[in-house]
């Protein structure tokens, strides 16, 4: 083998020629052979003068086959390719170059197995650097195996594509769901409204006196129709909120007037539970920035909850606190409070502390989630303080109108 590595044939001194001829006998030769990269050196005549062990394995060409031959003799397929011109540039103008894997799909015919199977081709990133020594110019070619990097990015690409598709499917499904809900709810609401109207007429007796048993049945039917309508309205609200179609007419709202009205609306409901509403002093003329109807909707839910979850004979205290341009409305009850375990879920849709089917208290668990969405859309916030067994205080914070 040392035959082909003679310093008179190629441009290196005899010491170096010896290392190149039998690297395993020399420390520096061993280092080259242990490198995890392919390394070979070309002299100014384009002859290969160094070929490390990595190159031997990946190319299945022994040192004796390549040393002393020109680059193009060893790789005839690379004649005229970019790799040849950058080797020329390194030798002629001492320019260093990089050949990336992405822009040069195939550089050297190098494989992980002797079988030269396309699937076992080594993905490469190649650097080409000029070297000068003893007045001679050389070019060092280093081949870095980037196969793991290519595989990683292939996986990344597949994952990203899957994620994108999954997102599209999910968006489609959610659009379908909200369209479906709103169509169905509308379709249900119309006939139900007319059923309620008719039942109401019958119950009122204008169609003729009812036998007591029939009166009782009609009352049950009326109540349940009412409940169903409430539920449908809530579901419609949720689907409006989720699709961003809930409109708000923001403006100055007289807080005291709204509170008084809301208490009046809930009076009868409170009486069912034998609970009284009590409004603490509110400064006249306190004006908040809100949508009147929506604010009312939130207060109604908080007031009805307070009554619903309070023991008979207690009071619900409503007060207004002003601080730094923020107005807080507090609704305090003396009921059982909210179990610690349930607190984190209380504003979720359909969540109720007592999730059993046989609940004694009516409702669907939509009220608070709608209230939270409404308050936040109006630029405010909602929260509560509670101690189990002692009571709960729900509050909403909204802006003073003057400060908007």
């Amino acid at each position: 083998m040392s035959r082909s590595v003679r310093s008179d044939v190629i441009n290196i001194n005899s010491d170096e020629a010896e290392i190149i001829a039998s690297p395993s006998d020399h420390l520096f030769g061993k280092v080259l052979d242990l490198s995890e990269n392919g390394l070979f050196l070309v002299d100014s005549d384009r002859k290969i003068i160094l070929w490390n062990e990595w190159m031997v394995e990946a190319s299945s060409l022994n040192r004796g086959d390549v040393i002393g031959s020109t680059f193009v003799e060893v790789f005839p397929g690379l004649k005229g390719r970019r790799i040849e011109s950058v080797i020329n540039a390194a030798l002629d103008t001492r320019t260093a170059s990089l050949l990336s894997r992405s822009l040069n799909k195939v550089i050297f015919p190098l494989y992980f197995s002797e079988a030269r199977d396309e699937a076992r081709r080594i993905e490469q990133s190649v650097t080409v650097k000029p070297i000068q020594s003893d007045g001679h110019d050389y070019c060092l070619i280093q081949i870095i195996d980037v196969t793991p990097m290519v595989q990683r990015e292939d996986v990344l690409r597949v994952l990203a594509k899957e994620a994108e598709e999954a997102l599209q499917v999910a968006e489609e499904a959610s659009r379908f769901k909200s369209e479906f809900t709103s169509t169905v709810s509308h379709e249900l609401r119309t006939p139900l409204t007319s059923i309620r109207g008719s039942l109401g007429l019958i119950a009122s007796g204008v169609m003729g006196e009812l036998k007591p048993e029939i009166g009782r049945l009609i009352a049950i039917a009326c109540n349940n129709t009412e409940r169903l309508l409430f539920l449908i309205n809530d579901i419609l609200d949720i689907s409006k909120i989720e699709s961003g179609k809930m409109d708000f007419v923001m403006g100055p709202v007289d807080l005291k007037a709204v509170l008084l009205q809301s208490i009046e609306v809930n009076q009868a409901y409170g009486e069912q539970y034998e609970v009284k509403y009590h409004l603490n002093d509110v400064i006249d003329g306190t004006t908040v920035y809100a949508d009147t109807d929506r604010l009312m909707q939130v207060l109604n839910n908080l007031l009805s909850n307070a009554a619903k979850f309070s023991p008979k004979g207690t009071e619900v205290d409503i007060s207004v606190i002003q601080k730094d341009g923020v107005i807080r409305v507090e609704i305090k009850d003396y009921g059982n409070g909210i179990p610690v375990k349930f607190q984190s879920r209380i504003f979720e849709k359909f969540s109720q502390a007592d999730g059993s089917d046989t609940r004694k208290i009516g409702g669907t668990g939509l009220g608070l989630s709608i209230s939270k969405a409404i308050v936040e859309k109006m630029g405010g916030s909602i929260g509560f303080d509670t101690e189990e067994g002692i009571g709960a205080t729900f509050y909403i914070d909204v802006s003073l109108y003057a400060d908007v």
Partner: protein
Amino acid sequence: MLEITELQRDYITEVLNISMGSAAAVLSEMVNEEVSLSVPEVDFLQRNAAANKFDQTNAARMSGVTQSMRGALTGDALLMFPEEKTLSIVRILLGDTVPVESLTEMEQEAMCEIGNIILNAVVSSVADLLKKEIMSSLPRFIKGTGSEIFSVETCDNNDLVMFLKVDFGLESQSINGYVTLMLNVDSLHDFISQLDEQISAV
């Protein structure tokens, strides 16, 4: 700041545009697509003025490729684009893309190669102008703001920067970037006198 004559400026610009033309030809062949490169503007600025120019024209971050030079010029050669432009260049040139917000490892490597081709063209034409040898290292991917890239805090602000505006034409869009070469005062004087010699020879 350094003043050069219109004649000197035109001469440098012409020389640079010739080498950019060949860099563009190399790139076009590699990606099988029409790529054009030109240098519409050449300036000589102080380091901090160059940093300011980056920060002002591109409030956002820049990214690109750097090579360090040895020989007749010592310092860094940079090719920079606004970060999102770098992304579009690489993704247009590579074709098949990964839908993530920043360049992947392999895309950075590809950008390094693109930068290497362009910077080698610029450096070699400057070396030709100087009639001296400039060797440059392999390219490295970098990103940051103007002042980070020019390490304004740590360097001598009297250093000069040769500041080139570069138009990268791709798929009928033109992407603006910059090439800068750090110069020291000595190499600059050399540069100017060589320039004059060559101009008078023409």
